[in-house]
């Protein structure tokens, strides 16, 4: 009688609680249709995909796309570019919001501080198309303010966006301009959580603000810094490729082309869906492993750390 009573229990449960399942159903269906079904479609990375045969009926070809991928110079270049751009982002883009938050913390004038914060958060809410429009205008050889300023110093104008060596500095710099302010919010919140008594006793000991920043503020927000760093490392494969698509051109592919822009060009522009899906799958798998490692690390760290 065990199975029957179990079925009865389920029926009884559904009779009583059917409403929450009705609430959940649309979301679950949405996830299946728009996120899980594409995962099923990933099999074309191992197939000779044809639009007419569809995903299921296209013939399997094993690892052919991957073999071609790893012998493809453009793909290897895209992987390296992804890592290099992320590394630069980490090196310069990661400390920027921390430094900004520490500086905000030292500003005494409340209105001045609030105004500055309001302004530096703003670029985060501006679309990448507009950001690209601003960058293209500002760096243009004839119109751009950057070249105008260079001319004041007698330097010949440079067509920055066609120069491979300039792409990464411009891209990373734009990222800092857009996100450093907004990124500082997390660190400011951490600073706000530091116990005032620590500062009070430091004042009694005769410490100055500079010493307090190094001896109290920074050690206190270190857990937040480490967690944010781990998250950043987990997202190394996620370069904001939308902005790259808007800023790069064939002349700068050499330094600008990342895996996702490569996938976009090969797949959506040239119609090599199966090959591009293979490149995308490689990216997704590496990203998955990194995120999992980062999650484990941050969980372990936050359990042993003070909060």
């Amino acid at each position, binding site marked *: 009688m065990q199975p029957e009573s179990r079925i009865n229990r389920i029926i009884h*449960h559904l009779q009583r609680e059917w409403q929450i399942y009705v609430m959940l159903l649309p979301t679950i269906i949405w996830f299946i249709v728009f996120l899980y079904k594409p995962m099923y479609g990933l099999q074309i990375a191992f197939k000779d995909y044809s639009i007419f045969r569809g995903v299921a009926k296209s013939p399997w070809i094993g690892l052919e796309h991957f073999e071609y991928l790893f012998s493809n110079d453009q793909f290897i270049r895209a992987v390296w570019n992804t890592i290099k751009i992320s590394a630069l982002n980490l090196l310069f883009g990661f400390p920027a919001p921390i430094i900004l938050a520490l500086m905000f913390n030292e500003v005494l004038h409340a209105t001045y501080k609030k105004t500055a914060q309001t302004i530096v958060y703003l670029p985060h809410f501006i679309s990448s198309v507009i950001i690209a429009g601003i960058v293209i205008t500002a760096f243009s050889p004839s*119109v751009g*303010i950057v070249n105008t300023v260079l001319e004041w110093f007698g330097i010949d104008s440079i067509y920055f966006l066609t120069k491979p060596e300039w792409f990464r500095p411009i891209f990373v710099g734009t990222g800092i301009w857009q996100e450093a302010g907004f990124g500082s919010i997390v660190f400011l919140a951490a600073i706000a959580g530091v116990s005032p008594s620590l500062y009070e006793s430091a004042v009694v000991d005769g410490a100055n603000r500079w010493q307090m920043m190094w001896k109290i503020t920074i050690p206190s927000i270190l857990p937040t810094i480490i967690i944010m760093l781990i998250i950043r490392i987990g997202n190394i494969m996620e370069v904001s490729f939308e902005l790259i698509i808007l800023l790069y051109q064939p002349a700068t592919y050499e330094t600008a082309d990342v895996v996702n822009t490569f996938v976009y060009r090969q797949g959506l522009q040239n119609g090599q869906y199966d090959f591009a899906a293979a490149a995308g799958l490689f990216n997704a798998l590496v990203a998955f492993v990194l995120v999992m490692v980062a999650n484990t690390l941050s969980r372990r760290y936050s359990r042993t750390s003070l909060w």
Partner: protein
Amino acid sequence: MLNWNLYSRGDKFFAIAVSVLVGMFTIATLYPFIYIAAVSFSSGFAAQAGKVVLTPIDATVEAYKYILVKPEFWISYRNTFIYTIGGTIVSMLFIIPGAYALSRPQLFGRRFFNLFIAFTMWFNAGLIPFYLNMRDLHLLDSMFGIILAFAVNAFNIILLRNFFEAIPSSFEEAARMDGANEFQVLWKVFIPLSKPAIATVTLFCIVSRWNGFFWAMVLLSSSEKIPLQVFLRHTLATLSDDDEFAITQLEAAYSAETVTAAIIVCSIIPVLLVYPWIQKYFEKGILLGGVKE
């Protein structure tokens, strides 16, 4: 704690130096916007000669006249409003009930469903399978497709679910006593108590809809369906190579650069208008979002 009168001379110097640095960074953040606005109001000739630095040179509104009479501009502007408002409403219709159901302790398979949703934050099929799926669903070049396909994401659901879970059950007991069903409990108890979290998620939806361009560019082919961002991108990419434009520009007081700048200004203005309201919520919101999984 921070008291200027107690500061030593060194501390005062430090505070002033830091304030100056903050001011410089703030000006550097603001400057590109001022520069673009100045370009948009300058004559095409002055802009192309690289004369614009801070204020408009040979001030003119020709670039705005050029853009504001274009029907494509207004159509794309209207479309952006449709995607933003329609998309946000559809998002909330999925997210609020979904998050509520996931927060209920009696939900059978709750752990499984939560993992089912969180997994999509860690692994994504990528551009190509998503695109082919949209084609198979006949949602290419469809406004409905854009609204539906980007309605939900795991992060927003989890954010709201965490907030619902933190509401003590004592709040719903009175409603339960009165015989309220789940829909009524959600509507009368949870939604009023979760206004800050719901506002935050609404804000995330609005911002991502307003700014969304990549998939709109890839999925939409009819010019009467594209949002403002795609129109802007199209203008950025083609204006300087457009022969017809090059000819009219010779007689007019605008250039590709001033027209581009004018479109940028037009698309930033609505963001600036709602920004004070946005700011009220996002500082709280980003911290709510810090609680993952």
